[in-house]
C-alpha cells in the first residue's frame, strides 16, 4: 500500500471509554484502534449502541467529563498523546479537525445568518481582517457547491433546505482548514437524492484537497460505496476492519454478515431468487416464498385453519381514486396529494415510495381513514370506507389495520402490551374477556413473542419486539389489509430483516394485502409486488415486481435508484447523468407543468407548461413523463 510511508493524519490506539453507571462500570468503547491516511475515507459502522458515536466524540475531545478515557491518539504527525492532554487536544482539533453532525438544523445557530456563522469560525481560526473574512466565507461557500454565495450568506438557517444547511455546516467545518473531517451520520437525515449530492461533495473534497474523512454511519451501503477502509463496531469493539471491498463482499465476522445481509441493497442488475433475508433469525425462515404464493393465490392450498383459507380466497380491494389533499397553514397551502389513484388487493404488497414531502404518509393515513381527502374517494369492496357523516363502522374498521413507524410511540405507555393488543378486540368483537386473553396469547405466538411479553410495558421491550407486538395488535381483528407506514425505518438493520420476514410470512398465511410506505428502495424492492413512486403528491411511475427498478423510465425514479448507495459499487463509479439536480421545491410551491422539471436532467421546454398524465407503457407499468416514449436508449 502506498499509504505506508505517509504519516497518518490520525492514529488512535487502544481507545477505551468507561462510564460508571448505577450497576457498576460500563465500557462504552473497548480497545479500539483506527488509522486514517490523508486522501482516504474510513467508515465506522455499527448499530445503535455499538459505540461508534462515542469513538467519534473521543476523537473530537467532546466526551463528557465523567467519561474515563484511556488509550493514545496522535494527530497530524504530532507526538503527544492527545487523550492524555485535553488542552492540547482542543487546540489541535480546533485547527486540524472539522466536524459535521447528523442534524444540520440543530447544529447551526438559528439566530445568525449563515454568512455570519461561517465568518465567526473563520475569524477564530485565522487572523484575517473583516473584509478578508467575508471573502474567505464566500469562497468556502462556493467550495461546498453553493451557487450565488453572496445572497445565500444573508439567509438564516431555517430559510434553507436540509441539503443546503448541511453544505453550510460543511463549509463551517472547512473554515479552520482542517486536514481531517469527522462526520457523524451526515446524510442520514437527508433525502436520498440530496444524500447523493452531499456524498459527491465530501468525496470531491477528499480527492481534491487530500483530506482524511472519518465517516460514522449505520448504513453499510453508504460505507461500502464511499470508503477505502471500513471498521465494523459491535458492543464497543471493532470486530472487523479492512478494505471496504473485503469487508462488504467477504465479511468475516458474523455481525458484519448480519449487517450486510440485512442492508437489502437495491439490486439493478441480476435476478436473484427471493428467499429469507434474515441472517439472524432461524424461525422466520419458514415458508415465505411469496412469488410462489402469489402464483397460487387464486387456488390457495389449504393451510392452517379453514377461516384463513376462506380469507385468502376472498379478494378484498381497497381503491383510492382521485385523492387530493391540501393542508392549509394560514395563507400557505401544502399539497400532500394531487389526484392520486391507488389500489391494494389482498395477497399483494403495494409500496409507496418517495422522499419527504412526497405525500406518502398522507396517502397511507387516508387509506385507513385517519385523514380524509379534500376530494376523491376511498372504496373498500364497493363500499365507501367512511360514510358521509365521517363515521367508519366497526366491521370496516376491523378489516383495515395499521403498523406505525415508531413502535414505542405507537403503544400507550401506561398500558401493558397484552392490554394494548386487547383494545381492538374489545371494540371489534364480542369475545369474553377470557377468550380475548387467549386470542392475545395466540397473536403474540404468531409474531414470535412469548406469553410473558403480554404483561410487560412498552419500555421493557426492544424496538424489534415492540414492532412484532404492533403487528400482533394490527392482526388482532383479522384484517384483510395492513397499512404499514415505514415499519422498519426506526429499527436496526439486523432486526429489520426479521420484521420484514414476519410480515411476508403472515401475508402468506393470511392472504393480507399490504400497503407499504417506505423511503428505502432496497426494502421496497425486496417486499413489493407493485411500486408506486410519488413526487410532491403526484404519482410519477408505477411498476411491477423487483424488475421495476431496472426498467424504470421516469427520470425521478431513475435518480432515486442512482442515489441509492450500494456497498459493492464504488460511489465514484456511479453514472452521474441519472442524478436529480437541486432539491424538491417543497409542497408549498409546486412547480408548473411537470412538477419534477426543475430538477430533471431531461427536461425540455414543454415540461414547464404541460403536466404529463400517467400513461401505460406496458402491462402494469405506468409513467407520467412527456418523454417516456424516447428514453429507452438512455442509461
Amino acid at each position, binding site marked *: 500500500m502506498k499509504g505506508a510511508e505517509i504519516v497518518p493524519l490520525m492514529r488512535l490506539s487502544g481507545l477505551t471509554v468507561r462510564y460508571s453507571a448505577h450497576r457498576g462500570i460500563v465500557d462504552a468503547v473497548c480497545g479500539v484502534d483506527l488509522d486514517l491516511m490523508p486522501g482516504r475515507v474510513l467508515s465506522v459502522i455499527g448499530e445503535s449502541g455499538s459505540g461508534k458515536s462515542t469513538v467519534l466524540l473521543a476523537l473530537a475531545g467532546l466526551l463528557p467529563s465523567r467519561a474515563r478515557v484511556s488509550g493514545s491518539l496522535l494527530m497530524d504527525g504530532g507526538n503527544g498523546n492527545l487523550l492524555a492532554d485535553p488542552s492540547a487536544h482542543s487546540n489541535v482539533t480546533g485547527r486540524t479537525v472539522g466536524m459535521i453532525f447528523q442534524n444540520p438544523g440543530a447544529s447551526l445557530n438559528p439566530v445568525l445568518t449563515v454568512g455570519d456563522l461561517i465568518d465567526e469560525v473563520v475569524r477564530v481560526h485565522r487572523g484575517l481582517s473583516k473584509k478578508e473574512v467575508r471573502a474567505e466565507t464566500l469562497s468556502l461557500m462556493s467550495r461546498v457547491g453553493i451557487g450565488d454565495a453572496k445572497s445565500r450568506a444573508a439567509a438564516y438557517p431555517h430559510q434553507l433546505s436540509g441539503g443546503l444547511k448541511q453544505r453550510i455546516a460543511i463549509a463551517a467545518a472547512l473554515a479552520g482548514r482542517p486536514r481531517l473531517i469527522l462526520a457523524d451520520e451526515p446524510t442520514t437525515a437527508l433525502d436520498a437524492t440530496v444524500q447523493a449530492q452531499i456524498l459527491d461533495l465530501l468525496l470531491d473534497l477528499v480527492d481534491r484537497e487530500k483530506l482524511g474523512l472519518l465517516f460514522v454511519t449505520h448504513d453499510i451501503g453508504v460505507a461500502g460505496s464511499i470508503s477505502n477502509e471500513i471498521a465494523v463496531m459491535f458492543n464497543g469493539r471493532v470486530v472487523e476492519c479492512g478494505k471496504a471491498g473485503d469487508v462488504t463482499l467477504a465479511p468475516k465476522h458474523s455481525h458484519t454478515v448480519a449487517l450486510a445481509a440485512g442492508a437489502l441493497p437495491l439490486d439493478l442488475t441480476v435476478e436473484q431468487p427471493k428467499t429469507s433475508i434474515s441472517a439472524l433469525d432461524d424461525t422466520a425462515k419458514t415458508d415465505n416464498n411469496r412469488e410462489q404464493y402469489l402464483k397460487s393465490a387464486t387456488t390457495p392450498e389449504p393451510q392452517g385453519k379453514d377461516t384463513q383459507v376462506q380469507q385468502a380466497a376472498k379478494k378484498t380491494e381497497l381503491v383510492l381514486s382521485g385523492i387530493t389533499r391540501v393542508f392549509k397553514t394560514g395563507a400557505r397551502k401544502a399539497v400532500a396529494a394531487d389526484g392520486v389513484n391507488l389500489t391494494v388487493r389482498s395477497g399483494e404488497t403495494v409500496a409507496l415510495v418517495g422522499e419527504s414531502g412526497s405525500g406518502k404518509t398522507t396517502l397511507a393515513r387516508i387509506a385507513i381513514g385517519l385523514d380524509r381527502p379534500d376530494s376523491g374517494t376511498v372504496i373498500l369492496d364497493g363500499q365507501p370506507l367512511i360514510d358521509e357523516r365521517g363515521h367508519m363502522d366497526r366491521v370496516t*374498521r376491523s378489516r383495515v*389495520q395499521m403498523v*406505525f413507524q415508531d413502535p414505542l*410511540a*405507537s*403503544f400507550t405507555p401506561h398500558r401493558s402490551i397484552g392490554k394494548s393488543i386487547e*383494545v381492538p378486540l374489545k371494540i*371489534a368483537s364480542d369475545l369474553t374477556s377470557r377468550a380475548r386473553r387467549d386470542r392475545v396469547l395466540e397473536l403474540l405466538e404468531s409474531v414470535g413473542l412469548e406469553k410473558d411479553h403480554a404483561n410487560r410495558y412498552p419500555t421493557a421491550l426492544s424496538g424489534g419486539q415492540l414492532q412484532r407486538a404492533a403487528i400482533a395488535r394490527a392482526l388482532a381483528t383479522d384484517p384483510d389489509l395492513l397499512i404499514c407506514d415505514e415499519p422498519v425505518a426506526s429499527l436496526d438493520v439486523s432486526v429489520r430483516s426479521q420484521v420484514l420476514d414476519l410480515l411476508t410470512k403472515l401475508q402468506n398465511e393470511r392472504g393480507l394485502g399490504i400497503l407499504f410506505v417506505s423511503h428505502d428502495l432496497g426494502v421496497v424492492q425486496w417486499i413489493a409486488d407493485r411500486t408506486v413512486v410519488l413526487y410532491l403528491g403526484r404519482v410519477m411511475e408505477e411498476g411491477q415486481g423487483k424488475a421495476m427498478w431496472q426498467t424504470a423510465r421516469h427520470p425521478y425514479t431513475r435518480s432515486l435508484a442512482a442515489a441509492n448507495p450500494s456497498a459493492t459499487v464504488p460511489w465514484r463509479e456511479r453514472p452521474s447523468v441519472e442524478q436529480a439536480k437541486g432539491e424538491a421545491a417543497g409542497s408549498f410551491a409546486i412547480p408548473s407543468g411537470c412538477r419534477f422539471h426543475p430538477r430533471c436532467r431531461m427536461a425540455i421546454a414543454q415540461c414547464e407548461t404541460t403536466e404529463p398524465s400517467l400513461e401505460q407503457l406496458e402491462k402494469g407499468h405506468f409513467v407520467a413523463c412527456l418523454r417516456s416514449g424516447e428514453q429507452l436508449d438512455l442509461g
Partner: protein
Amino acid sequence: MTRLTLITGLIGTVILAALILIALFAQQIAPGDPLQMVGRPLLSPFADPRFPLGTTQLGRDVWAGLVHGARVSLTVSATAAAAVILIGILVGTLSGFLGGYVDDVLMRITEAVQSIPAFLLALALVSVLGASVTSVVVAIALSSWPPSARLVRAEVLRVRTLDYVDAARVAGRSPLAIAFLEVLPGALQPVVALIGITVGEAILVESALAFLGLSDPNLQSWGLMVASGRATLRVAPLLVILPGLAIALASLSVSLAGDALAARLSEGRRA
C-alpha cells in the same frame, strides 16, 4: 432525583403524615369542643399540665385548637384541591383534545377567570355564598382552577399527536374514550406535581379567609386562631405565632412531598 430532594421529600411526607394522623384522631388527642371555655384565659404554655400550650383570651385550649384546626384546614384544602384538579382535567382535556371552537370558548373563559386575582374572587364568592366550609371549598375551587386547566391542555396537545393515539383511532375507540383513556393518563404526570402546589395554596387561602372571618365561625381553624389572637398580640404573641407556624408547616410539607413525588414520577417516565 437528587439526594436533597429525597431528604426534603421524606421530611415533607413525614410531617404531612403526622398532620393527617392528628386531623383524623383530633377527637381522641384533644377530646371535647375546642371552642369551649375550659380554663383561665391567657394561660401561658406549660403553666398548667392540662393545657400544654396555654389558653386563649377566651379560655380556650390552644393545643386543642391547633389539633382540631388541622382537621378543618386539611379537609377544606384537600377537597378544594381535588375540585381544582378535576375541573382542570375536564376543561383541559376537552379543550386540548377537541380543539376548534370548544377550545376557543373554554380558553377564553379560563383567561377571564385568570384575569381576576384568585383571592379576590374567592373573597367575593364567599361573601355571596355565606360563611361556611362548603362555600369556602367552592370559592377556592372556582377561583384557582385555571392554571391546572392550562397545564392539562398543554400536555394533552402534546400527547394527542403521538402515534398511540392514532393506533387507538385505528382500533376504533370513540373520541371520548381516546381523550380520557389514552390521552389523559399520558398527560397526568405534571398534574400530579401540581397537586402539591394546589393543596398548599388552598391551605393559605382557607386560612386567609378564616382570618378575615369569612369561614365557618363555629369551627376552630388556624386562620380563625390567628385572627382572634391578633387582639392580644403584645401580651401573648404565641397565640398568633403557633397557628401561623402550623399553617406554614402544613403548606410547606405538602409542597415538599409534592415536589419529591413529581421528581420520582419523571424519573419513572424516563426509565
